[in-house]
């Protein structure tokens, strides 16, 4: 009977493969049970109508979570989405605008090329916004699914459903609370840095203004060599983004957050040290220009450069260690407060 087939199909269409067949078989046998022997089309119609809306039944059968971001996280999602979108689009717009200042469209140029540039700039900004929205959404979906070990309930720092009075957050104390302003500033800095390295690495360098008012940039970084590092940088930035969102939501340190945070900063530290020590990453012309500018010999500039390298490496190690210890102390403080 085609009507029965269609009804069963409507119910089971969206169900996961592993239960589809069994549900179909059972539903069919149940429907046939409702029918008298030698039934007519009218009987089938009556039985199916009695059984009710097949999509409603399908929903009852559906074992999967049927939302991406639930009500507990929704308002924070919207808030962070706006925040990150604002930051990213501003940064991309700023870099594009900066680009124009450095290399202005030549005077008397075809107005249509100006329009083209404007369209391109808008497209770049929109694209940056879309990327940001996508990643923030994915991070929230992951949090919603418990991939970061925090529950969907308001007490996001509690890892299981059992809560006691001691889990209640202590009233805001600046020393243990993760500053939201700090988190946002760090996010802006990280995104700005990445955007420059990703879109316009040649902008890092020093600028000499020529007689005609146009700047010449002596870039520090070798763009080709930099390509090698881009994937690592992007992965680390993504981890940073996850940490930003996580910190923003949880607001207090916990052991798991601290572990991931410290691991990420150690990785960033290692990457930076490797990059600083990679001589092929830096353009020789930059140092030649510096030598000329300060009336020094190239060899003395390169010697200075080695010094600076060492200072940078030592600072990276100290900052990373200090940050890890500092956040660890805060994590412990939060724990002590609770017990």
């Amino acid at each position, binding site marked *: 009977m085609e009507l029965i087939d269609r009804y069963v199909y409507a119910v089971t269409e969206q169900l996961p493969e592993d239960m589809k067949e*069994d549900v179909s078989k*059972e539903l069919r*046998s149940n429907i*046939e049970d409702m029918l008298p022997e030698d039934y007519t089309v009218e009987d089938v119609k009556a039985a199916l109508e*009695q059984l009710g809306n097949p999509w*409603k039944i399908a929903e*009852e*059968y559906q074992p999967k979570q049927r939302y991406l971001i639930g009500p507990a996280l929704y308002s924070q999602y919207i808030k962070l989405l706006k925040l990150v979108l604002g930051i990213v689009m501003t940064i991309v717009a700023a870099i594009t605008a900066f680009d124009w200042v450095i290399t202005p469209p030549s005077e008397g140029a075809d107005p249509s090329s100006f329009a083209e540039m404007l369209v391109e700039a808008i497209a770049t900004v929109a694209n940056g916004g879309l990327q940001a929205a996508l990643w923030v959404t994915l991070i929230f979906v992951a949090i919603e699914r418990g991939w970061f070990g925090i529950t969907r309930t308001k007490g996001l720092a509690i890892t299981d459903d059992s809560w006691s009075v001691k889990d209640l957050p202590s009233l805001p104390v600046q020393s243990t609370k993760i500053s939201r302003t700090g988190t946002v500033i760090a996010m802006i800095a990280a995104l700005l840095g990445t955007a420059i390295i990703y879109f316009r690495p040649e902008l890092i360098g020093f600028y000499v203004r020529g007689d005609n008012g146009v700047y010449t940039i002596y870039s520090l970084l070798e763009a080709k060599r930099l390509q090698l590092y881009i994937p690592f940088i992007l992965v680390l930035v993504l981890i940073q983004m996850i940490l930003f969102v996580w910190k923003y939501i949880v607001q207090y340190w916990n052991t798991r957050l601290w572990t991931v945070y410290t691991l990420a900063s150690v990785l960033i530290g290692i990457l930076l040290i490797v990059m600083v020590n990679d001589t092929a990453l830096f353009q020789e012309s930059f140092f030649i220009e510096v030598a000329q500018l300060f009336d020094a010999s190239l060899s003395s500039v390169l010697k200075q450069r080695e010094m600076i390298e060492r200072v940078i490496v030592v600072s990276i190690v100290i900052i990373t260690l200090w940050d890890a210890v500092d956040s660890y102390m805060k994590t412990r403080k939060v724990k002590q407060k609770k017990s």
Partner: protein
Amino acid sequence: MDSTEELINSLMVELKRGTLVLLVLSQLHQPEYGYSLIQKLEEKNAPIEAGTLYPLLRRLEKQQLLKSEWDTTESRPRKFYMLSEQGKEVYAKLKSEWQTLSQQLAAILMEENV
């Protein structure tokens, strides 16, 4: 007046929904299949909608309160459900909870009548 009626209806649905699991578990000391359970409950004046019952049986099976078996000996294959050991335990506990609850509620509602 219509909205009061609607409100009562939706509250009734909620009230009944809470007792549904208990009702279904109570009838599954011996194996039943979907339609036989519907008829059984209808006879006992506790009708349940088929569209609600079938998915519910499956959910209870997934929660391991019920075990199931396909019977293919008859002309039409049927899936039979029955209480599992865990299901029996849960049912006993739920039953006593319900009895306490309904007694308490009855006593409270009686007070009002005086």
